């Protein structure tokens, strides 16, 4: 049908993609972001908003399992593609676009998923009712028959237990939620998993893990990596424009345009350091004094609050571009320290603190492997 074809054509002007970076495939993820921007594709924050899942690198078994689960959450029309080197990115995105455009295959996929879901629920003896499907009538009513079947166990509707509770800092009894952050999460270090226990949006407990991939090369262009980390922190501070600017500097560095990169970065770093709103919003978040930093085995540049560390990151990138020493401290130790660093913070602050420390998950996973 002509109308439908035109609709598909229009929809393909702006696919949204969710990116998964495997530790060690930094360069591939960066190339994916650049290729997406060139095509007018947009990044997605969650599977519900995504048409495409791009896996950058080859995940290990644990990470692969997580990625499979996320793939199942894409609403469809969907495409999952992988790139294990920057050169493969263009082909992977082309393939994704072609698969999204294949209306018949997408319809088959959607039908198979509905069937599988129905079979699944039949296996569970109709448990779970249809309350998710909210409106048997409007959905055509084909599967709305078990609406009133309230066979759920009192304590675990749809097979998921109700939230338990625990004492909070004021001595009140409060419900707790287990909310893991990572590995599939926007603006998040590759492979990092921070399992948080929340009361409201405050982290009362956390533990950390890194899901690694197969063998991989470390990233080499230091100034570009630092810029990428700073851009991530800026994005989390809700300043997308500044983040995009710093990311452009990253790309200039990777392309070897060092002079232009230096000029742009000088201007951007000054703009970031000058912004009063940014300072007001990040001041005193995750403050560390030198003694605490040393106790955690963190480098000297980890001292201060989120704003200090962000400015320092940009400063390091400038040093690197100017040919001065930009030896960043070893950022793998910070991974182990994260549970303590984020304790008692709310989620937005947790994300900013993690980004401002720019943890080196690849280094941490290697160390772990060497220890084992």
């Amino acid at each position, binding site marked *: 049908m002509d109308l439908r074809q035109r609709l598909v054509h229009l929809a393909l002007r702006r696919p949204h993609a969710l990116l998964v970076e495997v530790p060690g495939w930094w360069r591939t993820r960066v190339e994916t972001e650049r290729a997406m921007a060139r095509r007018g594709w947009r990044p997605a924050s969650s599977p519900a908003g995504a048409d495409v899942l791009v896996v950058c690198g080859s995940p290990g078994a644990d990470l692969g399992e997580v990625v499979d689960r996320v793939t199942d*959450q894409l609403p469809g029309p969907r495409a999952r593609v992988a790139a294990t080197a920057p050169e493969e990115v263009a082909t992977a995105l082309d393939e994704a676009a072609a698969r999204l455009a294949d209306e018949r295959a997408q319809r088959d996929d959607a039908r198979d998923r509905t069937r599988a879901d129905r079979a699944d629920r039949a296996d569970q003896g109709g448990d779970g009712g249809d309350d998710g499907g909210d409106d048997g009538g409007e959905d055509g009513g084909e599967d709305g028959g078990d609406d009133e079947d309230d066979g759920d166990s009192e304590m675990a*509707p749809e097979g*998921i237990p109700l939230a338990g509770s625990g004492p909070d800092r004021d001595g009140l009894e409060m419900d707790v939620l287990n909310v893991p952050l*990572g590995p599939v999460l926007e603006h998040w270090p590759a492979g990092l998993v921070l399992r948080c226990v929340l009361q409201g949006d405050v982290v009362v407990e956390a533990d950390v893990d890194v899901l690694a991939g197969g063998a991989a090369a470390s990233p080499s262009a230091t100034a570009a990596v630092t810029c990428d980390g700073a851009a991530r922190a800026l994005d989390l501070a809700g300043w997308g424009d500044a983040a995009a600017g710093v990311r452009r500097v990253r790309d200039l560095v990777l392309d070897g345009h060092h002079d232009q990169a230096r000029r742009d970065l000088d201007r951007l770093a000054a703009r970031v350091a000058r912004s009063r709103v940014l300072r007001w919003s990040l001041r005193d978040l995750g403050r560390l004094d030198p003694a605490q930093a040393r106790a955690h085995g963190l480098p000297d540049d980890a001292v201060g609050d989120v704003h200090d560390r962000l400015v320092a990151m940009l400063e390091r990138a400038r040093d690197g571009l100017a040919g001065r020493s930009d030896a960043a401290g070893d950022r793998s130790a910070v991974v182990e320290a994260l549970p303590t660093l984020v304790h008692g913070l709310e989620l937005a602050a947790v994300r900013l603190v993690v980004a401002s420390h720019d943890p080196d998950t690849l280094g941490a996973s290697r160390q772990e492997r060497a220890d084992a």
Partner: protein
Amino acid sequence: MTPYLGVLSLLLVALAVIGSVWAVHRLVTVTAQPLRSPPFLSGWPPSEHALSRFHARWYPATLLFLAFDVEMLFMYPWAVVVARVGLSAVVEMFLFLGVLFVAVVWAWREGALRWT
């Protein structure tokens, strides 16, 4: 009643727009059957239902808001009569607001407006 006819007709337009979004969707989508999916938790299955007693740490601010918001209702009738009543209306209202704001400052000093 007539002016509210306009409001009602805009409400109907809004519902019509929402209805047509749904109708067009059903015509062009790959499947009208919604996908059943667990909530997104960075790729992990949920270990409990999220709907729970949420610890809203800013609850003192809600009480403050309620107090000030009720007062706010007086502002509208007051705004209409200020020109007629004159200076005394302004003095009375701002004395009242001043007293209320002292309470806000007190609550602020007690830390009711900080929640970390």
